[in-house]
């Protein structure tokens, strides 16, 4: 049996399943024969872990064996205790083990101490009352037991230095005795007296003496003695020496000891053994924290280690260099690092080296030019491994300049960046992140200094989009860059000729499967069609760093909502409230029902109110006027009305639910985000009003109670994200400004909430935090919407909307809605999607007004800059727009464009 169990252990070590035999091993430990019992213990310690089900069968036997007369049985049981006893079973064996601390056999005492140490590791509280026992055992007659006691003491001291300061003297005297060979000869190892005990003691002293002058002074003599006595020809002697250096670098510095430590290090570094070089490099890394000047003596040795074929040694050396970096040597070190980075294949380590390069470059860059060059190299070689944030940082750096109010320097920097990027573009196979940076910079600054013509840059950009045709992000960046360049050209009054390849590219993108690309292509088309003034307001040149204020709570809509609710509109019902079955198929069949919908229009008429708060008042206001409005104006409403009959028109409440579900389905989750917050705030405020005004709103009162909880749920993940980005963001900025390399502008994007009376305010105020600057800065190079003098939205509106006047209340609020909504969008994508999406989202906000008009197709375009008085139709359109903007144009809802674009 015994042989079989040993075979089984072997089989399991080779990687096969041996769990069928575990129970036999457990049975074996109950055997009387010592040999069988020991084999059983060996097998269970190797088979089982402390949480295994069979442990419960073992505990009783262990208890019995710990009381055995035969010390070998006790030892075997203690071995098992170390491995198998878990937190719950500790109390069962603890008393016996404490008794064993006084066992006559030293081997048993040692193992009992180790068992207690193990308990301490597993559950410190279970043995906290026994700490004094460890101190007592330190004075054990047997040096072996004393040495074993050092292990738990080391752990205890690591956790709490101060309560063991009194032991410094005892440790020092023990170390002295050991070093003076007072221990029995048997403890010598390679002519070193008890080196393992020395090492342990030095480690403990290093902990106790760290930044404690008084304690350290006690140690100086003995550490100095060991330095002298150490035999540096044997391996173990060097181990003790190394431990001495660690100790010296940790305790309160003493000049004499530092000198001997430096000597020892130079011996290590000069040695032929790679092991010793490795230890020397490691020790040097510790010592330069205290005395940086000693590194200079060893420069050459360190450089040798860099050239060494040994990978471990090289990495250790780079670690040392990373610690040694100053603004004077940063260029050399980072160059070296990049070289090394190119030579390795291990992605994990490559990422680490790349991030270190970036960190050093950010901290110590001697010049901006150098910084950009370095970043280019890093991106080129490890672009896909670098954190995307680094790319955003680089873009921001180029956009904002370096903080000094020196515009010529900034523009020089930019043109040098443009030049280097144009050069790099010639190389094949660049990483995606790097291409994004290149496209952005070329789009923003490619033509800024007039050195390169627009057609040259656009040609390059088209090449990029074609060469990397399977990377949609890059293509999207390229299209946006094209748009910017054309916009700058138009704004400058030059005539724009689109290159033929650009035309073909656009045609391809217009039919792209990616809605993002499609969107951007349409935007580009729309922008090119506009005149210089409009373009300049949409895409002013070099304005990517201006701040945008985002009103997250949509408080500007409060009045409007209040008003509409008073007029009988139903408050918004959050997504979660709208339960019920999903009727996707209804929407598939919409078109068929459209024809028959006319007859049912009146019945379905009220329903659109509930979908989105903002759309309600016009409907109620113009309950009679609305009917004659051409159907094409309201593609969506007509869908909704048609669905109702097709579903079930039994109860009004089910109708409501069904319809809303459908909407939710069609527009994806994000549709409701902006409107949720809006109507949350108002519906809470005016709940009483609703029930008075609109008697049919019984459903509301039912759902009202849950608003609060719903809101909490909605806010908290957002808050967490913001907090996370807050803690990430500012630290970067601080670092940069601290090193004087570049003081970033206070690019704060305060999310202010203006929802004064609603309870929403409380929640949203908590969320009004600084946005991570890098994201917003680069995500929205085109939006200056809130800049007071230029309001592209208003201008656009003026350009495109008919000038008919209408009741001012509606007009006012809906205009506000239009102008603000892109911001909202920006905000939500900022927190939900990646930054690169934002570009398109905001632009989609910008370009939507013309598009909606195209769809409507009813009004003639009258260019009248000054007037902003949309008629009822327009306000309705805008209401629809508000909703549309709530949708992230992503691939999840391809139907979007069908609606907008006909």
């Amino acid at each position, binding site marked *: 049996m015994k042989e079989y169990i040993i075979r089984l252990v072997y089989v399991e070590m080779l*990687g096969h399943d041996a769990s069928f035999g575990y129970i036999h091993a457990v049975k074996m430990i109950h055997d009387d024969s010592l040999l069988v019992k020991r*084999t059983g213990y060996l097998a269970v310690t190797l088979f089982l872990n402390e949480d295994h089900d069979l442990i419960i069968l073992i505990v009783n036997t262990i208890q019995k064996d710990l009381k055995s007369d035969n010390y070998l049985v006790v030892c075997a049981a203690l071995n098992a205790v170390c491995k198998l006893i878990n937190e719950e079973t500790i109390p069962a064996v603890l008393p016996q083990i404490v008794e064993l601390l006084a066992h006559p056999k030293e081997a048993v005492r040692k193992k009992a101490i180790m068992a207690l140490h193990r308990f301490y590791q597993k559950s410190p509280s279970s043995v906290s009352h026994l700490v004094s026992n460890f101190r007592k055992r330190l004075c054990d007659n047997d040096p072996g037991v004393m040495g074993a006691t050092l292990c738990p003491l080391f752990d205890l001291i690591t956790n709490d230095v101060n309560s063991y300061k009194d032991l410094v003297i005892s440790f020092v005297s023990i170390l002295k005795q050991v070093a003076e060979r007072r221990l029995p000869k048997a403890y010598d190892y390679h002519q070193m007296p008890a080196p*393992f005990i020395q090492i342990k003691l030095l480690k403990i002293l290093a902990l106790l003496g760290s930044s404690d002058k008084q304690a350290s002074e006690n140690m100086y003599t003995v550490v100095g003695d060991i330095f002298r006595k150490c035999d540096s020809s044997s391996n*173990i002697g060097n181990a003790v020496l190394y431990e001495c250096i660690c100790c010296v670098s940790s305790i309160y510095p003493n000049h004499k000891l530092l000198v001997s430590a430096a000597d020892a290090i130079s011996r290590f570094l000069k040695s032929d053994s*790679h*092991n010793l070089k490795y230890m020397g490099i490691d020790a040097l890394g510790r010592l330069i924290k205290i005395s940086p000047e000693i590194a200079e003596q060893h420069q050459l040795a360190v450089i040798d280690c860099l050239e060494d074929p040994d990978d*471990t*040694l090289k990495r250790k050396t780079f670690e040392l260099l990373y610690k040694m970096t100053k603004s004077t040597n940063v260029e050399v070190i980072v160059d070296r690092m990049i070289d090394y980075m190119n030579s390795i294949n291990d992605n994990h380590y490559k990422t680490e080296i790349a991030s270190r390069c970036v960190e050093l470059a950010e901290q110590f860059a001697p010049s901006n030019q150098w910084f950009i060059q370095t970043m280019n190299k890093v991106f080129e070689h490890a672009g896909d491994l670098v954190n995307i944030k680094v790319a955003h940082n680089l873009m921001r750096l180029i956009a904002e300049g370096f903080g000094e109010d020196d515009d010529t320097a900034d523009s020089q920097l930019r043109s040098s960046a443009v030049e280097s990027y144009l050069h790099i573009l010639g190389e094949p196979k660049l990483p995606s992140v790097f291409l994004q940076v290149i496209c952005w910079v070329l789009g923003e600054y490619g033509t800024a200094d007039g050195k390169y013509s627009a057609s040259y840059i656009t040609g390059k950009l088209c090449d990029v989009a074609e060469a990397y045709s399977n990377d949609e992000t890059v293509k999207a960046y390229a299209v946006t860059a094209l748009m910017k360049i054309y916009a700058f050209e138009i704004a400058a009054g030059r005539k724009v000729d689109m290159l033929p390849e650009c035309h073909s590219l656009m045609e391809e993108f217009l039919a792209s499967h990616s809605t993002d690309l499609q969107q951007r292509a349409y935007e580009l088309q729309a922008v090119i069609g506009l005149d210089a003034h409009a373009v300049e307001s949409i895409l002013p040149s070099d304005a990517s760093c201006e701040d945008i204020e985002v009103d997250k709570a949509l408080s500007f809509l409060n009045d409007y909502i209040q008003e509409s609710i008073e007029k009988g509109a139903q408050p918004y019902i959050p997504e979660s409230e709208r339960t019920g079955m999903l009727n996707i198929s209804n929407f598939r069949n919409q078109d068929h029902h459209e024809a028959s919908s006319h007859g049912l229009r009146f019945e379905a008429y009220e329903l659109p109110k509930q979908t989105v708060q903002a759309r309600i008042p016009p409907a109620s206001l113009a309950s009679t006027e609305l009917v004659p409005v051409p159907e094409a104006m309201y593609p969506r409403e007509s869908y909704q009305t048609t669905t109702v009959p097709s579903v079930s028109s039994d109860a009004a409440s089910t109708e409501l639910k069904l319809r809303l579900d459908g909407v939710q389905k069609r527009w994806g989750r994000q549709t409701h985000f902006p409107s949720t917050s809006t109507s949350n705030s108002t519906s809470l405020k005016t709940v009483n009003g609703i029930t008075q005004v609109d008697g049919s709103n019984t459903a509301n009162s039912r759902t009202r109670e849950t608003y609060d909880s719903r809101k909490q749920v909605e806010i908290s993940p957002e808050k967490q994200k913001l907090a996370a980005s807050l803690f990430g963001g500012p630290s970067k900025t601080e670092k940069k400004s601290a090193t004087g390399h570049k003081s970033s502008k206070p690019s704060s994007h305060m999310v202010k909430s203006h929802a004064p009376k609603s309870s929403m305010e409380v929640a949203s105020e908590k969320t009004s935090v600084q946005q991570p600057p890098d994201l917003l800065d680069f995500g929205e190079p085109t939006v200056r919407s809130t800049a007071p003098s230029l309001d592209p939205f208003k201008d656009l509106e003026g350009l495109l909307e008919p000038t008919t006047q209408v009741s001012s209340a509606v007009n006012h609020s809906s205009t506000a809605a239009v102008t603000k909504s892109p911001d909202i969008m920006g905000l939500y994508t900022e927190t939900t999607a990646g930054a690169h999406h934002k570009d398109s989202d905001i632009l989609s906000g910008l370009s939507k007004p013309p598009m909606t008009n195209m769809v409507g197709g009813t009004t003639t375009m009258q260019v009248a800059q000054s007037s902003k008085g949309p008629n009822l139709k327009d306000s309705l359109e805008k209401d629809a727009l508000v909703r549309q903007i709530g949708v992230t144009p992503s691939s999840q809802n391809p139907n979007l464009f069908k609606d907008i674009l006909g």
Partner: protein
Amino acid sequence: MIKAVMVMNTQGKPRLAKFFDYLPVEKQQELIRRVFGVLCSRPENVSNFIEAELVRLQDSRLVYNHFATLYFVVVFDSSENELAMLDLIQLLGQQTLERCFKNVCELDIVFNYSKIHTILDEIILGGQVLETRSTEIMRAVEEISKLEAATNAISFIPKSASSWLSR
């Protein structure tokens, strides 16, 4: 603390694996494979230390040594001294096993599996180095074998591989 001691041959077959922190069997196998992958890619005459990042372990380092056809590997965390661990391997591999078996070879370990474990238990307990005197270790091990023999009348432990084969 010491996390694991492994002995494997130059083909990557594990000959002895003792983990002081619990790892599921599959993880153990994976670790052994990774360690071997790194070991056999290392050139001659380089240091005996490996950053454990290479084998995807947190806060741990690796020291290995090469005797005859066997790799001895110790995995440990930052509270141990690398050179000391190297000496521990020396102690285990060269001194103790040599004394036990005279010209230790792979087969000795295969056939005296439980004895090797007994030796290791004497040296390392609960992940801490307990005993470094090879005479003391030998004495303890022999005492155990003697007692075991006494209780069983017949020894099941062959003295070495040769005696096992000659039976």
